[in-house]
């Protein structure tokens, strides 16, 4: 209290210098007696609302005038008031002083806006008392506020309970004073009706009340609630303020709606703390409105975005100085906790299954019911707004606006707490773009829905489909299936002139890849066009790639989460494309950061959210401040009208599921390591444990995190195949790059030993062989595969061929229970007698013989092969592993087993991918080897119905993604999934962690410290016994 007193006194003295001059300056004020001129003057008698409601409970509805009298007589005592009411039924009005009567008339005038039924006649009686602004007849009461005022001078008996008071600003020349000292000019003075200064509203409230008066949003009626008879300087008295919204408050002119442009400007200035006068006014108004509405408690709990608004109230009611510390890097926003994200997805799912269905004439594929319903929605998103929201009050409310009821009335008005704007008209969510996000869960046929939409208006114009490289072929094929003409604008296909293409061919669908867009975008930059769209449009048309200048009828981004990072070139390139309708297809519009969505909204042009500054202020910042729920609510409001999301689990109106997929069974196949493998595993484990203990002892687990992760990686690899550890070229997950250190020699030799057949003795023929080989220069043709030998091998009988061929020959004969013989001379042969020839040194003169042994197959591989062999003859399978080098080993092994295997990984070109998928699609009884990372997205492999997951990933979600490649729409057979897990190993523990992740409530509210602790805990679990 002490500091405020001090400050107050300072201003008080200043005030005392010239109360008269100030009253003169006050515009529109005429302080002549009996003529209440200012808007703040002459309002009905105040009363604490509880008193009134209590009283009305006894006496029924009371006029303000009557009530005021009762209040005055009874001094707030209900019992007394009731008695007075019955004692003085008629005389009451007469009994009051002349002033009061006059005052009462005024009150009727000013309050007629909401109590016209009670006092209809009074209006016409006192036309002269209508405010000069002419707005009073439409001023709307919105609630009353009790504030403390501070006496700025001593007075005796000047004010008593229930006395009417005048509220006024210290100075109306605020424009001048703001510039000088903006924060100080916030005093609101209280005067008696006769104009004598009593004091001013104390600090807590004056700021917003001053702003509201300045911006003419509110009129206030003041009355005394409590005051000591002897008011001494600095003592407090209590004033009730009745708040009325003026007509002006609802005018757009006073507060133009923020469009993205002004918002941008505004925020820039805001950030630089250099606001223009008008901007300052507007912001003050906004803060004041938020403050006032918060204090009046006008936001109803059941309002859809009540939480969000309340958060905003809390945030915005803080003075600007206490704005959150500016975030330096916008990209550092935390990932959304998965559980929250799931909940968000859940909420935007469209349960409304009663939408009408749309049929597409001539479309060759049978659409499912929900697809037809989805089509209705998609078409509606492409047609005019008016067709969709014909009714004024229907449709979603603009998320920035909140509905508020006028107290005691059915009427309502709307507040935009973010701009401080008020309106009586329903602020409908304006559609700023045509299109939307189709976010149906994977496998619900987003592609088919899209094609149906394209098919419907295929003659209108060309649709551009942008898809990841691996899916181009799939799109092409699907288009072909439904009879849409296509052109693949990619690689060589992108070399043509688009204008020429459309002159001669004019395909329904132009298919391109993100990759192509990126490279074309690069050309723009190279031309010096810069990144700005405006600049680009200024470059002459032949200079920029046609893909960016052509105006398409529609653009569809497949797997739109590709552009989730708005700073990537692909995102920028996509935003540059031009079309009437824009669509984003993705099962996960938000991967793990809210900004993921922003990039898509930017592509769609979903104003105002495509402006990052806007986005940042309403979503990123609240989210970073921990108002996760409110940020997500805002996102939900944005998404609701523009997203269609259905999941496999949703039911149709008749209760049947949307999609009936064949049964899916997931088995965990426990694999036991062989003794040899166990030795290596234990060795790696022991080393990992030692290094963990060392780190723990020195309290440096965090710092050695990477090292320990590497050790764990090796453990996981040794579960698959010990040979993986020694492959330096092995593609290992990022950050876990393997380095073979000097002291690894023991491990190396152990694995070497594992790889070698220990029974092979030193070769006694080696000198002879070497002599033979030295004569041999050009690589001979292999007698078995008839190809040039790449890996030359020689047998004891000095016959040569490919390593694999010679070995295969021996193995084959062994498998037929025959005695293996050399294919040339028919002398007995054995694997141990076959040597791989390594030529090293200059001119390849140094020849070394490597013993070839039948490398033992790892336990998992044995398990896989035996599983594959049990399958029906033409059953197709997919095999996933995260280690591509492991896929190499599997591939070799399957070749040995004469199991046809295809390979799909990140190293393939688009053409190769297409070829592989085609060949796999057409083949029978084959296996497709896929790296978990490459094959996780989009691929449709429903021709296979068996999946084998060789190694577990940290989260099951990744594996589930992989499984969904074969368990999706179009799958007709039951799906069998086998997950190979090595017994008593790190893999079992990974399973446990996977389960924990699914069970735990989530990481919501976990501090970074706690998350770190959790990670270390996980490591201990992994390496524990």
């Amino acid at each position, binding site marked *: 209290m002490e500091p405020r007193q001090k400050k107050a006194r300072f201003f008080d003295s200043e005030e005392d210098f010239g109360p008269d001059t100030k009253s003169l300056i006050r515009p529109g004020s005429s302080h002549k007696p009996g003529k209440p001129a200012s808007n703040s003057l002459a309002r009905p008698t105040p009363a604490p609302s509880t008193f009134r409601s209590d009283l009305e409970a006894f006496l029924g509805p009371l006029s303000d005038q009557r009530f005021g009298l009762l209040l005055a007589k009874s001094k707030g005592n209900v019992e007394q008031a009731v008695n007075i009411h019955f004692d003085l039924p008629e005389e009451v009005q007469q009994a009051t002083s002349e002033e009061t009567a006059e005052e009462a008339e005024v009150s009727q005038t000013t309050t007629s806006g909401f109590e016209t039924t009670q006092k209809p006649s009074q209006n016409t009686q006192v036309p002269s008392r209508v405010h000069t602004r002419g707005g009073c007849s439409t001023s709307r009461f919105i609630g009353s506020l009790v504030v403390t005022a501070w006496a700025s001078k001593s007075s005796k008996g000047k004010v008593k309970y229930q006395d009417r008071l005048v509220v006024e600003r210290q100075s109306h020349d605020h424009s001048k004073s703001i510039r000088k000292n903006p924060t100080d000019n916030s005093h609101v003075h209280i005067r008696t009706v006769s104009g004598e200064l009593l004091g001013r509203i104390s600090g807590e409230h004056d700021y917003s009340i001053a702003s509201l008066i300045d911006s003419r949003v509110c009129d206030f009626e003041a009355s005394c609630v409590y005051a000591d008879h002897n008011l001494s300087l600095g003592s407090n008295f209590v004033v009730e303020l009745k708040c009325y919204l003026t007509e002006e408050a609802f005018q757009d002119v006073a507060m133009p709606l923020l469009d993205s442009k002004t918002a941008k400007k505004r925020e820039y200035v805001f950030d630089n703390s250099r606001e223009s006068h008008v901007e300052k006014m507007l912001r003050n108004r906004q803060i004041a409105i938020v403050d006032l509405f918060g204090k009046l408690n006008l936001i109803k709990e059941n309002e859809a975005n009540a939480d969000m608004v309340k958060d905003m109230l809390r945030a915005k009611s803080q003075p600007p100085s206490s704005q959150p510390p500016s975030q330096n890097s916008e990209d550092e926003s935390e990932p959304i906790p998965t559980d929250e994200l799931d909940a968000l997805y859940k909420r935007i799912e469209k349960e409304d299954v009663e939408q009408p269905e749309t049929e597409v004439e001539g479309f060759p594929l049978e659409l499912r019911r929900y697809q037809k319903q989805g089509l209705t929605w998609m078409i509606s998103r492409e047609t005019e707004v008016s067709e969709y929201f014909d009714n004024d009050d229907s449709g979603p409310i603009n998320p920035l606006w909140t509905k508020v009821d006028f107290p005691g009335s059915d009427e309502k008005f709307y507040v935009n707490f973010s701009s401080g704007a008020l309106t009586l008209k329903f602020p409908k969510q304006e559609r700023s773009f045509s299109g939307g996000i189709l976010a149906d869960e994977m496998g619900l046929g987003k592609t088919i829905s899209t094609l149906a939409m394209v098919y419907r208006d295929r003659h209108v114009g060309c649709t551009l489909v942008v898809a990841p490289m691996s899916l181009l072929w799939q799109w092409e094929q699907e288009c072909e299936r439904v009879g849409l003409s296509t052109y693949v604008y990619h690689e060589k296909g992108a070399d043509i002139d688009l204008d020429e293409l459309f002159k001669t061919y004019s395909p329904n669908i132009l298919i391109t890849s993100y990759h192509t867009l990126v490279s074309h975008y690069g050309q723009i930059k190279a031309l010096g066009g810069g990144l700005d769209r405006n600049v680009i449009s200024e470059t002459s048309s032949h200079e920029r790639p046609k893909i960016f200048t052509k105006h398409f009828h529609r653009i569809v981004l497949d797997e739109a989460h590709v552009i989730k990072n708005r700073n990537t070139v692909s995102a920028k390139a996509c935003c540059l494309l031009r079309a009437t309708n824009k669509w984003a297809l993705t099962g996960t519009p938000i991967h793990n950061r809210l900004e993921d969505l922003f990039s898509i909204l930017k592509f769609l042009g979903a104003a105002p959210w495509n402006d990052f500054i806007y986005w940042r202020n309403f979503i990123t910042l609240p989210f970073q401040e921990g108002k996760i729920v409110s940020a997500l609510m805002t996102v939900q409001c944005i998404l609701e009208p523009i997203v269609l999301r259905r999941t496999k689990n949703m039911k149709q109106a008749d209760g049947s599921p949307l999609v009936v997929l064949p049964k899916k069974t997931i088995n965990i196949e426990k694999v036991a390591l062989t003794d040899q493998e166990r030795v290596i595993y234990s060795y790696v484990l022991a080393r990992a444990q030692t290094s963990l203990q060392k780190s723990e002892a020195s309290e440096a687990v965090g710092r050695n995190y990477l090292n320990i992760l590497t050790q764990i990686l090796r453990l996981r690899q040794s579960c698959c195949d010990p040979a993986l550890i020694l492959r330096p070229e092995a593609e290992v997950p990022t950050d876990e790059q393997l380095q073979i250190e000097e002291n690894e020699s023991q491990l190396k030799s152990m694995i070497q030993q594992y790889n070698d057949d220990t029974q092979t003795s030193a070769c006694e023929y080696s000198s002879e062989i070497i002599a033979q080989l030295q004569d041999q220069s050009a690589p001979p043709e292999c007698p078995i595969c*008839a190809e040039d030998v790449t890996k030359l091998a020689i047998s004891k009988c000095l016959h040569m061929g490919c390593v694999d061929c010679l070995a295969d020959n021996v193995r084959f004969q062994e498998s037929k229970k025959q005695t293996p013989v050399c294919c040339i001379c*028919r002398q007995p042969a054995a694997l141990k007698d076959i040597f791989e020839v390594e030529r090293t040194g200059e001119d390849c003169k140094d020849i070394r013989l490597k013993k070839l042994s039948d490398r033992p197959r790892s336990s998992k591989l044995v398990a896989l092969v035996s599983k594959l062999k049990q399958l029906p003859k033409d059953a197709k399978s997919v095999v996933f592993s995260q280690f591509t080098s492991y896929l190499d080993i599997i591939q070799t092994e399957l070749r040995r087993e004469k199991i046809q295997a295809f390979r799909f990984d990140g190293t393939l070109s688009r053409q190769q991918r297409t070829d592989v998928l085609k060949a796999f699609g057409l083949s029978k009884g084959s296996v497709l080897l896929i790296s978990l990372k490459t094959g996780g997205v989009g691929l449709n492999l429903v021709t296979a119905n068996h999946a084998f997951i060789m190694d577990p990933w940290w989260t099951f979600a990744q594996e589930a993604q992989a499984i969904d490649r074969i368990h999706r729409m179009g799958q007709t057979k039951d799906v069998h999934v086998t997950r190979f897990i090595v017994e008593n190993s790190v893999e079992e523990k990974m399973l446990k962690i996977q389960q924990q992740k699914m069970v735990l409530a989530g990481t919501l509210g976990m501090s970074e410290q706690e998350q770190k602790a959790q990670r270390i805990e996980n490591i201990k679990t992994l390496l524990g016994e």
Partner: protein
Amino acid sequence: MNALPKRISKETERLVKEPVPGISAAPHDDNLRYFDVTIDGPTSSPYEGGTFKLELFLPEDYPMVPPKVRFLTKIYHPNIDRLGRICLDVLKSNWSPALQIRTILLSIQALLGAPNPDDPLANDVAQKWKEDEKTAIQTARDWTKEYAKA
């Protein structure tokens, strides 16, 4: 069906490019593992002047396992039975992946020039060959004339 191994296409190519005199082999268009084969009877053998049709099929495991070969033209030969099956060691136990279609067909051609009644497949023919070689050779000539004329 697996993709065609490189070896098979290479062999096929070579059979066309460098044909063996008196032998032709051409794969079917719809099954590249199935060959139509003709072998001319060796000179100064009872089969001289005849052109014998055979079928040859390369099994899945070829070249680990031998091709399957059978005469389609009726032939009077102690090592070839009425169904055209051939008794030849390299087609059975003595197969080696180093052998090829070409070498196998040469072996069959050689077998026509040197019937081996001691290791018979058609017992009645072998019997006749041993008892009355002249008549047997004449029958072989007659059959060649009757069935193996182009």
